[in-house]
């Protein structure tokens, strides 16, 4: 199960993160190393992403979880290079299929966007252009990576719409976004993302703006789609419940830092970081009927004035003096965590799954 020191050329020797799903020593599809993105605001510099590192392997679904403001969306944008002023990526490396994306020339980056890596956003009403038909927008996406003729584009568009489960796709092609329901719109956005058959798709809370029932549907469809297409997914969400259904591996972020990582089942059953435990406890499904919902005390600190050391220490019940120094990342493949007083470690020692 564990092969820590991987001798394949593509993986860095000091990081031996395991893919957690199967045996095998394939090179990661996406390698993020020490990524940092800052925003210059009126009240100071906000480090939205502060030294985040992780891998994504082919065919897997990784969940990126955290509260709003944890930096998960910004991480997604940073990977694709979609950070606008006043934000900028200050350091780190993002390698997609071996190519370094940070600092890449703009026209080169453009050939990769949509073609090898794509993104789905949260609110499809603002993502889709309201004055263009569905087909018009799909055409633009296809023409960005090739010169298919009209008939080919129609065929591909219909096929893509069919794959995301849109009934009566011919009619939908000529529809405008406002004529479709929220779920339909998001399906169209997903279809556009998958249109050029990318290897990796980053989904930024794509179901948050939708009805719960539609959410469930789309989750199931995504799973099938991913399996059939062999695509990798990074699923960003603040909702642990939905992510855990979909993802085989979880990454937990807090205040711009990656604080815990591991296979989904393990992270949920034996979380190491107190914040993760807090997230799990605050799930409505965890609350005993008739009792109050559990909340993590306090609130997320402003990114411009984070406490020194561990960013969570002011809300943590286990915090001590040592927590004002930065916690070191502990790696026990396939788990990693950054905490001076991790939980459940005694349990891990007993049965390491």
């Amino acid at each position, binding site marked *: 199960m564990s092969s820590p020191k991987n001798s394949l050329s593509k993986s860095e020797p000091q990081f031996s993160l395991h893919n957690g799903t199967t045996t095998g020593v394939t090179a990661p599809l996406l390698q993020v190393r020490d990524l940092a993105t800052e925003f210059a605001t009126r009240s100071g510099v906000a480090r939205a992403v502060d030294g985040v590192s992780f891998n994504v392997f082919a065919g897997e679904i990784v969940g990126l979880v955290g509260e709003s403001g944890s930096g998960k969306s910004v991480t997604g944008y940073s990977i694709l290079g*979609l950070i606008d002023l006043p934000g900028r990526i200050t350091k780190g490396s993002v390698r997609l299929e071996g190519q370094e994306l940070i600092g890449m020339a703009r026209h080169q980056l453009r050939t*990769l966007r949509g073609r090898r890596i794509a993104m789905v*956003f949260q*609110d499809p009403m603002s993502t*889709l252009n*309201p004055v263009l038909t569905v087909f018009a927008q799909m055409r633009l996406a296809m023409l*960005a990576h090739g010169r298919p003729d009209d008939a080919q584009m129609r065929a591909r568009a219909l096929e893509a719409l069919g794959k995301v489960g849109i009934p009566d796709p011919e009619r939908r092609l000529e529809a405008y976004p406002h004529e479709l329901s929220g779920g339909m719109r998001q399906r169209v956005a997903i279809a556009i993302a998958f249109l050029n058959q990318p290897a990796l798709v980053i989904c930024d809370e794509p179901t948050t703006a939708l009805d719960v029932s539609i959410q469930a549907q789309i989750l199931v469809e995504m799973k099938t789609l991913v399996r059939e297409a062999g695509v990798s997914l990074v699923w960003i969400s603040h909702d642990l419940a939905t992510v855990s259904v979909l993802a085989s591996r979880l990454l937990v972020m807090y205040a711009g830092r990656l604080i815990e990582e591991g296979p989904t089942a393990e992270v949920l059953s034996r979380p190491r970081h107190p914040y993760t435990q807090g997230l799990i406890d605050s799930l409505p499904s965890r609350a005993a009927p008739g009792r109050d919902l559990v909340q993590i005390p306090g609130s997320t600190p402003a990114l411009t004035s984070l406490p020194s050391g561990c960013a969570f220490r002011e809300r943590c019940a286990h915090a001590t003096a040592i927590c004002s120094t930065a916690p070191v990342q502990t790696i026990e493949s396939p788990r990693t965590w950054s905490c001076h007083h991790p939980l459940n470690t005694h349990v891990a020692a007993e049965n390491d799954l």
Partner: protein
Amino acid sequence: MMLVISALVFIGVYAVGNPIDVMISPDVTQEIREQTIRAYGFDLPLWQQYGIFLQRLITGDFGRSFVYNMPVLDLIMSRLPATLEITLIAVVGAALLGVPLGMFAGYAPNSFAARAIMGVSVLGFSVPSFWIGLVLIFVFAVNLGLLPAGGRGETVMLFGVEWSFLTVNGLMHMLLPAVNLALFKLALLIRLARAGTREVMLTDTVRFARAAGESEWTILRHHVLRLIAIPLVTVFGLELGSTLAFAVVTETIFSWPGVGKLIIDSISVLDRPVMVAYLMLVSLLFITINLTVDIAYAALDPRLRARKSS
């Protein structure tokens, strides 16, 4: 609506002051004075005059100009082509130049070129157009001697109407007045296009398009342009009216024999039939423009179409 306007205009123009004094000199005998009054129907009560006015209106008879002593409608029509020439060039020129410049300024707002464009547009926007006309004449006609300082150039008959754009001399005469008219609209469009572009570039739509790998040019041409077209067309259409109004000033400065100069002259001599006819025609034009803008708005924004049909 037109009825209300016609009533307002009529009352305003005829009821203020005494029209009879304009036409005949005060030291004419009382008899001639009364004759003239009867001939023009001024002795009838106001509402009767209004009634006659409306009656004549339906037949397209706006009466005769006091000053020129010819049917007002003919008078206006004869001067209309001149105004149309410079107005159309001004409007089209402003659009073709202003929108791309504004989009560029909105796309790269901190670049030197963009700031220069915006700086110049402040001038075009705030400086009264008569002043710009003066400067134009000063620079081009007086100092550089390149272009004529006023008047219309040679005309050529086309479809029974005299146009001046078909001759080089005519074009040269047209250039300065058209530029003068265009500047304000140009500045306006640049500012609008810039503001709109800047806003749209920050939306998720553009981000999503970028994430799909679409080129910046594609984004500008297909997404931004289509999205800012709606407010641009609206304002542009509404400003068409004010362009016609500003033609009044421009034509005065450049001695351009168009409808604008006509109205100014009419106002200063209180040639009321002309004033009334002009105002009514302008109102009619406005209502038409507003309607057209409404239709264009619905055509451009599909969200409105759905609401109208459902």
